[in-house]
C-alpha cells in the first residue's frame, strides 16, 4: 500500500503517507500519535462521528442536536442517519441524554438541552 491522506483529527490537516501491508502499516507526516491511529484506521476500517438533529415533538419548530457517542463505521453513516430520522424526543431533554442506544456500536446522544 502507498496512500496519501489528509488527517481529519484536528484542524491542522496533516498530509499523511501510509505504506506497508495490512497489519504492518507505516505512517509518516503525522504530527501526533492520533494522526498515526487515524491513518491506520482510515486504511483498514474508516470511521466517522455522525451529527444531526432529532425533532422535539412537544415543542414547536424545535430540534435537539445529537451526535454518535463514538465514531461509527463510515459505510454505515446513512444507516445511522435512518435511525436518527426515525427518532422523536420529548422535552425537556438534557445535553448528554442517550436518545438511541447501540446504533452500529455507538449511542446517539443529545448535544444540547431543550427546556
Amino acid at each position, binding site marked *: 500500500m502507498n496512500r496519501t491522506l489528509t488527517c481529519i483529527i484536528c*484542524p491542522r490537516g496533516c498530509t499523511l503517507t501510509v505504506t506497508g501491508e495490512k497489519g504492518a502499516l507505516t505512517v509518516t507526516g503525522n504530527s501526533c500519535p492520533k494522526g498515526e491511529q487515524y491513518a491506520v484506521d482510515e486504511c483498514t476500517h474508516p470511521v466517522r*462521528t455522525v451529527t444531526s438533529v432529532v*425533532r422535539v415533538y412537544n415543542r414547536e419548530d*424545535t430540534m435537539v442536536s445529537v451526535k454518535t457517542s463514538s465514531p461509527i463505521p463510515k459505510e454505515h453513516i446513512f444507516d445511522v442517519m435512518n435511525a436518527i430520522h426515525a427518532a422523536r424526543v420529548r422535552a425537556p431533554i438534557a445535553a448528554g441524554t442517550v436518545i438511541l442506544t447501540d446504533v452500529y456500536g455507538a449511542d446517539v446522544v443529545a448535544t*444540547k438541552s431543550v427546556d
Partner: protein
Amino acid sequence: MLTHDIVVVGGGPAGMAAAVAAYDAGVKDVVILDRDDALGGILRQCIHNGFGLHKLGRELTGPEYADVYRAEVEKRGIKTYCETTVTGLSHDRVVTAQCREGLLKIQAKAVILAMGCRERSRGALNIPGTRPAGVYSAGTAQKLMNCDGYHVGRRVVILGSGDIGLIMARRMSLEGAHVEAVCELMPYSGGLARNIVQCLEDYGIPLYLSTTVAEIHGRKRVEGVSIARVDEKRRIIEATRRYIPCDTLLLSCGLIPENELTRNAGISIDPITGGALVDENRETDVPGIFACGNVLQVHDLVDYVSEEAEIAGCAAAARVQKGDAGAAFVSTTPGNGVRYVLPQRVHTEGSEDVSLYLRVTQPFGKVRFTVSAGETVLATAVRLKAAPGEMEKITVKSEKLHGVTEPIKVSLEVMA
C-alpha cells in the same frame, strides 16, 4: 441610565469567554447583551463536531462548546440580557439597547464588542440572473435545518468553499439532498483541509476550483444555475459555461465582521480584516472599547475566538481597575506573503509575550515567517504549509519588544 463596569455586546463564544475572563480578573459587575433568546451565538446551529480540540483538549459539537462557556457564565452569576439588541454605542461608552422591557441605556467603564460576523450575500456578490426563492447564505440554511427542522432544498449547488459551505454540503447530503457541486472562485479552497475530506470527499461531492456561478435561473424557485470557469483575473470563460439543474443555491463566500456599532462609535476599522484596529489587548483606538472574536477578524477556529476573547476580557478588567495600558507602542504591518497582522499595534514596554495572528496571501508549502523591526529579528517560525484559510500565530517574547521603535513587520519566505 444603568451603570455597569463592563458591558459585553454579544453572547456568542467571544462574548461569553470575554465576560468570564473579565470576571475572573476581578471585575464582578460585567453583563452580556445578546439579541437572541439564549447565549451561544452561531454555535447553537453548528451541530457538527470539531470544536474545542485546541482550547479544551477534547472534541465537541458547537452546542456543547457553547454550553461549556454558558455554564461558566452561569456559575459566576454574570447577568445576561437576552433578546436584547444593541442599537447604539457612543464614543464615551454609553450602550443603547432595545428589548421587550424597553430601551436600555447603560454607561459602562469598558465595553467589549463581540458581535461576530455575517455572511456575504448574493447582492454583495452581484450574481446576475433572476431573483427566486432557494438562494440561501449557508448559515441561514443551517439555521433553518438545524434549529427549526426544515429541509431547504433537494438538489443543491454551493458557491464558495468556506467551512460553512463545506459543512452544509455534508449536512444536506446526510439529510437526503443531492449536492451537485461546490464551486470556488479562487484556485484554492478557503476551508480547512479536513473539511474537504470529511465533507466533500466522503460524499463524492465535486469541488470545482476557479469556477463561479455565472447566472441564477428560475422565476419563483431556483430551477438551475449556470456555472463557468474563470481566468486568472476571475473573469468568466464563456466557453466553459454549463447549466446545472438544481432547486437550491447555497452561498458560502466569506464572512464580514458586523461592525456597524463600531463605526458609529467612531472606532477606526482595518480595511483588510474588516474589524477594528486594536492593540495586543484588543483595545480599539477609542479608549475603553475592546473587540474580540469574529467581529475583530474572521477566525477559522472557535478555539482561537475564545483565546482572543480572554485577552480582551482580562485587558478590559485591567482597564477598569488600573486605567491606561501605557503609551509606547509601534504598529505592525504585513510583509511579503502576509495579508494582514493582528493586533495592528503593539505596546513595547509590556511584561507579557505578544502573539501575532496573521493570514497568508495564497497557499504555500514550507515557509519561514520572520517578525522583524527594522533590522532586528524578533521571532521566526517555520510551518510545513500555510494557507489563507488557516490563521497563523507567532509569539514574540516581551523582552524582545522592549525598546523597539520601528514598525513590526511579519513576512514569509518559501523554503525548499
